[in-house]
């Protein structure tokens, strides 16, 4: 059994100290492309987290059998298999969501952050720690995605949590919160430039908090 402090460090790393979204700046492609609403951000973040946890775990299991020269192709193949499974599952059980996320689901494969964690952590650490690291890093990315998604949704459309029914079915139909009634819409926030502005603001906010602490 691993000590509690190690678990805590892994999660502190993933969620704050080495947050993939706003510190390592890895995984920017999905971060910028699908963070225009909370539901898009949340579902892509969770899908990535799932892939990261399983891929880190499986790489850690077989890490002693992978020839060093062939490790990168092996990792990528493994990740691609997992992403294909997740994509097919989402396509089967949440078809509307699949249509929205579209190309960005298969594009989880070449996301740098997954390969980076597999290479930097899972290929050198025991299995349980690697799974936890995948989860922590994935949740860190998801948190940034959701924050950015909420920011862009409120500024861009004046709503929050719209479209949850696409993922969860009829039950979530009434979850949409209209923050500003009669909002004229701020197209820039919904378009890709809004993602860059939002990400820049989030990084600035994190750096501010970090410098206040130090």
């Amino acid at each position: 059994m691993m000590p509690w402090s190690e678990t805590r460090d892994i999660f502190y790393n993933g969620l704050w100290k080495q947050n993939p979204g706003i510190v390592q700046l890895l995984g920017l492609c999905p971060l910028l492309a699908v963070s225009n609403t909370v539901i898009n951000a949340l579902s892509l973040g969770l899908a990535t987290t799932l892939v990261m946890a399983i891929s880190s775990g499986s790489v850690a299991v077989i890490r002693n059998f992978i020839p060093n020269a062939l490790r990168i192709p092996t990792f990528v193949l493994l990740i691609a298999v997992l992403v294909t499974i997740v994509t097919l599952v989402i396509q089967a059980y949440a078809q509307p969501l699949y249509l929205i996320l579209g190309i960005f689901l298969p594009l989880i494969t070449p996301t740098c952050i997954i390969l980076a964690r597999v290479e930097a952590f899972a290929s050198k650490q025991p299995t349980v720690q690697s799974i936890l690291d995948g989860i922590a890093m994935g949740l860190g990315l998801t948190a940034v995605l959701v924050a950015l998604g909420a920011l862009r949704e409120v500024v861009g459309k004046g709503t929050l949590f719209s479209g949850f029914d696409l993922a969860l079915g009829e039950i979530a139909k009434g979850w949409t919160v209209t923050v500003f009634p009669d909002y004229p819409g701020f197209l820039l926030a919904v378009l890709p430039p809004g993602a860059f502005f939002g990400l820049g603001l989030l990084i600035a906010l994190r750096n501010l908090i970090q410098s206040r602490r130090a």
Partner: protein
Amino acid sequence: MSPTPSVTRIMTQVLWALLPGIAAHVWLFGPALLFSLVLCASFGLLFEAALLKARHYPLRPFLGDGTTLVTAALLALTLPTLLPWWLYAVGMLFATVVGKHLYGGLGQNTFNPAMLGFAVLIVSFPAQINVWPAPAALAAYSPSLGDAYDMIFAGARLPIDAFSAATPLDSLKTHLRAGHEASSLMAAQSIPTLQARDLVALLYLLGGLYLLARRIITWHIPVAFLGGIALTSGVLYGLDPAHQAGPFFHLLAGGTLLGAFFIATDPVSAANTPVGKLLYAGLAGLITVLIRSFGSFPDGVAFAILLMNSAAPLIDAYTQPKVFGHRRRHLPGDKP
């Protein structure tokens, strides 16, 4: 740190040079421009003061240096009058906060702040922005100061067709899309607002010549910008006269003259070497005409200048003049 007196002097001269154009605009299009000028200036000073405070800079010298006023004037002159007040606020927010202070404040901005604010608005609120008031003489109904106040602050919506008209570039685009030919359009004078806008544009030219005479700007950028526009539109017109407007139309239309003398010449965001200025402004002219002719937006001055703003540091790096006593130009990557 405080802005040198010359910043204030230059900005005051620029404001004086804008006056004839502003006066003509007020005379021909009605007094609503005064509202947008005052609104942009007040919001600009407000955001500027807030950011100076947050960044621990002294308020008085920076607020009084005139740069915010010039940015506000340029934004107000490029936007339609009679928009709801918050659009001017959003424009100035992006101009001063994002365009200027996030890059490090006075003298540090990569992009021209006024054009950044304009681009944000035109991309984000196309429906609200594309309401260009017609010249007072031609409009079926000309809004008085009181009407202008109601429209800007109280959200009153007069029937748009009563006071607005498509700009020449707008109608050109619509007519071409409808399958008409550019030449017949020009001949039939179905671009009614051309003359009033021509006069305003020519007065911007006058103000620009004043700036040249006072040596606030050099000839390179205006000449290269107008040359780039004339050359590109001339070539396009020669290739396809049926679907292209000629160089004279492009030189007077839209933001060409205001851009050539007042916006592209921004000393901070433009290229600074003589050769660099020619390259920067010439390419901006080329891009302007390409956007007008083939893009989805009617005018391309703002986007062209912003694009070339981002290229200006690179252009400067490769066009450093030969230093006296050295054999050749100094290029990036050379040993010092």
